[in-house]
């Protein structure tokens, strides 16, 4: 398995960052860090020992889902945003419809906002994270999830 489970100390640091950046304090998942420095979250009820036993039996490709990347503090993944979006209380940046379509095409936005990570939202949809340098919002929408043709 190309990942290791977070130690109790690492987990504590992660949860503290999650609280600081997003105001989220209830994520009862098992966390792993992959060799690509990506954090993954597992909501299943196997213990880490049981997962390690499966790892002895089979080639484990993935455990759980992509949770976040430890950059700009903590950058939540596009899909995790939709799963825990309702728990997020900080750093939310609402876009207009026009901005949201531009965003989902994978483009950055010339938008003045507080420097740092923002949770991008349009209506009820969470559209991933963006990083603002104060003047521009940098886009992290995964390529395969971008609108390629006419916007809907």
């Amino acid at each position, binding site marked *: 398995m190309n990942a290791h489970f977070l130690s109790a100390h690492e987990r504590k640091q992660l949860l503290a960052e999650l609280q600081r950046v997003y105001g989220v304090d209830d994520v009862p998942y098992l966390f792993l860090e992959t060799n690509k420095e990506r954090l993954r*979250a597992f909501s299943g009820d196997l213990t880490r020992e049981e997962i390690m036993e499966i790892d002895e039996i089979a*080639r484990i490709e993935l455990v759980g889902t992509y949770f976040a990347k430890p950059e700009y503090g903590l950058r939540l993944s596009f*899909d995790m945003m939709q*799963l825990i979006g309702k728990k997020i209380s900080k750093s939310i940046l609402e876009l207009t419809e026009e901005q949201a379509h531009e965003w989902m095409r994978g483009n950055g936005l010339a938008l003045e906002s507080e420097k740092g990570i923002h949770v991008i939202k349009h209506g009820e949809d969470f559209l991933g994270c963006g990083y603002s340098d104060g003047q521009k919002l940098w886009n992290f929408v995964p390529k395969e999830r971008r609108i390629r043709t006419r916007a809907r």
Partner: protein
Amino acid sequence: MPYEMKPLFEERMKMLMPDKEDFDAFNTIVHTGPRNFIRCNTLKMSPEHLLKRLRKRWNVVQPFSGYPEIMLVEQALGPGELGSAMEHLLGYYYIQEISSMMSALALDPQPGELVLDLCASPGSKTTQIAARMENRGTLLANDIKLDRIKILSANMERCGVMNSIVTREDAVGLCMRLAKRGWKFDRILLDVPCSGEGTLRSSPKTFLMWNIKVVQNLSRQQMKLLANALKCLKVGGTLVYSTCTHAPEENEAVIHFALERFPVKVEHVKLPLRCRPGVTSWKDERYDAAVEQTCRIYPQDNDTEGFFVSRLKLLKEIE
């Protein structure tokens, strides 16, 4: 020019559908494209909410009471229109043919259970199982090839599946090792590689690719897969064996093989599509009468693709 059935395939289908009108209906419908079914991904959005959103754009209905997550877009769509919609990009729904949804419905996985999906890619049934498990319990999803694993994992990520472990193994070897270490699952989905006779509507090239030797070879592999999968099932646990083919060698013959060798019983499956009972004889073969409890889904009965679903229960420990 439309593809035509190979003579031997046509002869076999006529044996399965001796009534001329029935066969003609089959022969007509397999030359039409499939309908646009989608499945609401309840891990991210409720069916009511999704329906409300989609109805602003398309004519969407929920054709089956008791299954609000199953939706049908009843209008002509442009190429890729379902896949490029915002709701699809955000993982609110999965594009899945209705007959392929039947495996997970028959499996009926519950939150908190330990579930094994042995031939998981591309992930339509895996994501459906995870949704029914509400991301609780553990879902071990396996496939053999890395390129298929990539498709599987992309679909699982899009749908927000978090309770899963994805492995890349030959399913027979994986089952042998799991059984040796004492791993037992509450439910197992064995949706095996098959000759694909049921997919003529969405994949007309199957008309050309069909070959009786492939059917015979697959049948042997499928029996081996089922024999090993059963060894990983808890006593009282459920295994669903499904294919997207009509060939009895890949369906009832495989179930008959399991009934002969293992302490299993075939359970009747109640599904929201019209099912015909499994055939108890085919050419010179006679199958256990219990295979009648299995479910044959024919395209002309429901305006769907063709499919086969069976549910087995393990009655006692396999020695």
